[in-house]
C-alpha cells in the first residue's frame, strides 16, 4: 500500500513525531508526561514551568516534615531525563508565551498548572496585617519565591486557622513543632529563624461544621495528637451525638472520627496526663464556627482578634449544612490563617473557565470546544486531593490524549515545530529558559548546603528572570 504523504509533511525521519506541550511541572504535569511517553514511542513532550525550578506543590506545598511524600520527585526526575522529555523552567505561559502560540507550535497542549490562587473568606478585616492565606504561609516556609517577604507576625500567643483540611493541620503543626524537629527538615532558614522567635503557644483550627465533616485525614490528626510538648484542647460538647453516628460511617471517616473522639473525650492515663500538664503548647479543633470579621487593634491597625458566628448543623454526614444561630463569639488572637481552599486562575481569556468551580471545562481531560487542548490535575477537577488522586487524574487525561492520537481524532500527521519555534519567541522576548540539567545544578547546591547544616536540603531563594541568572553563576 502506498502512503500518500500530504504536503507539509517532511520525510519520515524528520518532524513526524507528535509533539505535546505540558504547562506546569507539578505532579499533574509529570504524571501526564510519564504516561504519554510510555504509551507511544514517537511522542515528544515539552514541559513548561513558570518558576525556575520544577515539581510544583511537591516542592512548595508538601510540609517540610513530610519528606517521604517528596520521594515522588525521583519518579519525576526519571521522566525528565528521558530523551523524549524536555523541561523549560522560567517560562510564564500567559505572559512570556500565549496558549494560542503553544497550540500552533504543538499537536496538543495539556494545561496542568494547578491552583495558584486561594478562596477568600470575604469578611471585613481580611486585609489586615496578621491575616494570611494558608497558601502564602505554606509558600513562605517552603521557599516559594513570591512568598519570601511574607514576614508573618508570630508575636502573639494565639493563632486561629480557618479550615480543617490537611493544609490547616500542616500549618498548625509547623507553628507548634519543636525547633529540634523542624531544623532537620528542608524548611527554609528564614522561616526557621522566625519560628525560633515565635511566641505562638496556642493554635485553634476552626471549621464551620462538626467533627464528622472535617476535611483532614487520620494521619495528620495523629501527628497533632503525638506532637511533643503540645496538648489537645477540645470542646467535649462539640462531639455530642458523634459516638452514636460512628457505626454508619465508612472506614476512613470512622477511624478518623474515632481518633478525634478519643482525643476529645477519653480521660488519658497518668503518663499522658502528666505530659499534657507539662506541655507548653496547645492545639484544638473548634467546630460550628464561621468567620464574620477580623478585629483590629485600633492603635496599630493590625489583627487583635476574630469574630466567629456560631452555627448549628442541619442534616448529617457529608451533606450536612451549617446554619447560623445568630450568636457570635470573639477570640483574641494576633495571627489568622485562612485555609479554606486553593483556587485555579484562568491564565488565558480564551480558555473555557468555570469561575464558580474554578476549573477549565473539560470532558475526561479534553478541554471543551478546543481541539488539541487538554487539562490534568487540580485545574481539571478542582483543588483537592493528594498526589495519588492527581496521578490517577493525569493518567486519565494522558489516555484520552493517546486515544485521540491513535484514532486520528487529533491529527498528528501535520508537522509542528514544537520547542524550536517557542524557543525563538522566548529569545526575542528576552526570556531565558532553565533546562533540567540547570535545575540539577541548583539541586546539587541545595543538597550540599543542606548537608552542611544537617538538613536534607537548603532551598535557594530562586527568583524569576534576572534572579535566576545570579543563581546560575554559583
Amino acid at each position: 500500500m502506498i502512503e500518500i504523504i500530504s504536503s507539509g509533511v517532511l520525510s519520515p525521519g524528520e518532524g513526524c513525531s507528535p509533539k505535546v506541550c505540558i504547562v506546569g511541572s507539578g505532579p499533574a504535569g509529570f504524571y501526564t508526561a510519564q504516561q504519554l511517553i510510555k504509551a507511544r514511542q514517537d511522542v515528544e513532550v515539552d514541559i513548561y514551568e513558570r518558576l525556575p525550578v520544577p515539581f510544583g506543590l511537591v516542592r512548595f506545598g508538601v510540609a517540610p516534615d513530610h519528606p517521604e511524600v517528596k520521594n515522588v520527585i525521583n519518579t519525576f526526575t526519571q521522566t525528565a531525563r528521558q530523551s523524549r522529555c524536555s523541561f523549560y523552567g522560567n517560562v510564564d505561559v500567559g505572559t512570556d508565551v500565549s496558549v494560542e502560540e503553544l497550540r500552533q507550535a504543538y499537536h496538543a497542549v495539556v494545561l496542568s498548572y494547578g491552583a495558584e490562587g486561594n478562596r477568600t473568606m470575604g469578611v471585613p478585616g481580611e486585609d489586615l496585617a496578621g491575616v494570611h492565606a494558608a497558601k502564602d504561609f505554606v509558600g513562605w516556609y517552603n521557599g516559594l519565591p513570591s512568598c519570601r517577604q511574607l514576614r508573618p507576625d508570630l508575636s502573639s500567643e494565639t493563632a486561629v486557622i480557618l479550615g480543617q483540611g490537611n493544609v490547616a493541620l500542616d500549618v498548625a503543626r509547623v507553628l507548634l513543632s519543636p525547633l529540634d524537629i523542624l531544623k532537620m527538615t528542608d524548611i527554609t532558614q528564614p522561616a526557621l529563624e522566625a519560628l525560633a522567635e515565635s511566641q505562638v503557644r496556642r493554635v485553634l483550627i476552626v471549621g464551620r461544621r462538626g467533627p464528622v465533616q472535617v476535611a483532614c485525614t487520620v494521619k495528620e490528626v495523629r501527628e497533632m495528637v503525638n506532637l511533643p510538648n503540645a496538648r489537645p484542647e477540645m470542646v467535649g460538647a462539640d462531639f455530642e451525638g458523634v459516638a452514636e453516628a460512628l457505626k454508619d460511617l465508612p472506614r476512613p471517616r470512622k477511624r478518623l472520627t474515632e481518633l478525634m473522639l478519643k482525643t476529645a473525650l477519653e480521660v488519658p492515663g497518668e503518663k499522658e496526663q502528666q505530659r499534657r500538664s507539662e506541655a507548653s503548647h496547645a492545639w484544638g479543633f473548634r467546630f460550628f464556627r464561621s468567620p464574620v470579621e477580623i478585629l483590629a487593634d485600633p492603635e496599630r491597625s493590625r489583627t487583635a482578634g476574630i469574630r466567629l458566628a456560631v452555627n448549628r448543623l442541619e442534616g448529617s454526614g457529608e451533606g450536612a449544612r451549617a446554619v447560623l444561630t445568630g450568636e457570635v463569639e470573639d477570640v483574641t488572637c494576633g495571627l489568622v490563617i485562612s485555609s479554606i481552599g486553593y483556587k485555579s486562575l484562568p491564565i488565558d481569556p480564551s480558555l473555557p473557565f468555570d469561575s464558580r468551580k474554578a476549573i477549565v471545562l473539560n470532558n475526561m481531560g479534553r478541554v471543551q470546544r478546543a481541539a488539541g487542548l487538554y487539562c490534568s490535575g487540580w485545574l481539571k477537577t478542582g483543588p483537592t486531593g493528594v498526589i495519588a488522586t492527581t496521578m490517577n487524574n493525569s493518567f486519565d487525561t494522558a489516555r484520552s490524549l493517546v486515544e485521540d492520537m491513535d484514532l486520528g481524532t487529533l491529527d498528528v500527521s501535520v508537522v509542528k515545530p514544537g520547542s524550536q519555534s517557542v524557543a525563538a519567541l522566548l529569545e526575542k522576548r528576552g526570556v531565558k529558559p532553565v533546562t533540567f540539567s540547570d535545575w540539577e545544578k541548583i539541586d546539587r547546591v541545595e543538597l550540599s548546603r543542606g548537608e552542611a547544616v544537617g538538613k536534607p536540603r537548603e532551598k535557594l531563594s530562586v527568583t524569576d528572570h534576572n534572579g535566576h541568572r545570579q543563581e546560575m553563576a554559583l
Partner: protein
Amino acid sequence: MAAAAVRSSMGLTLRLSRALPDCSNCPFHRSNGCVSGVSNLQRRGSFDSFRTINRHLQTSKGLYHGEEGRSNAEDPDDVVNVVYVDRSGQRIPVKAKVGDNVMYLAQRHGIELEGSCEASLACSTCHVYVNSSHFDKLAEPDEREDDMLDMAPMLQENSRLGCQIILKPELEGIELTLPKVTRNFYVDGHVPKPH
C-alpha cells in the same frame, strides 16, 4: 573516614546475623551488575531503616522500607508463584521468590503499579486487592498502612498496600488485583511497556 568504618562494620554485623546476604560470591556483584544489594546500601551510608533482604529478620513490626529485596538462592523452595490482574482485567502470572516485594516485583514485570513514595507508607499508589484465600495469610497491617489505605480510592475489605507485602512460601498462588481507579483504562488489553 570513621563513617566508612562504621558502615563496613555494620555490614559485617548484618551479614553475620543473616540480615543481609553475603554478596562476595554473587556474579552480579562481581560484575557490578547488582542493583539492589548490600553494596548499594553501604554506598548510601545509612542502615537506619534496616533494609532487610533476608526474610528471617524483620524489624519495625513487619514494616517494609525502601529497596526491593531478592533472595539470592536459586532454590525451587524459594519460588512463589503469583498472579497479577491488571487494570484491564488481564491475568499476568509471575514466578517470584521468597522475599520479593509485591510492588517492586510488579514494576519489574511491567505491571502498572506506581510507588510514588518508594515504599515509605506516605501514599496509596501501590494499592492492590488480595484474593480472599490469601488475604488472611498476610500479617496485620500496621496502623500507618491503614492510615494510608484510608486515602485510597475504591477501598475494599481486601485492600492492602503492595509495598508492604513481602512474599513468603505460604503466599504461593496469591492473586493481586489492581483497582480500576481511572475512568479511562485500556479496553483492548494493551499493556504499556515499562518506562
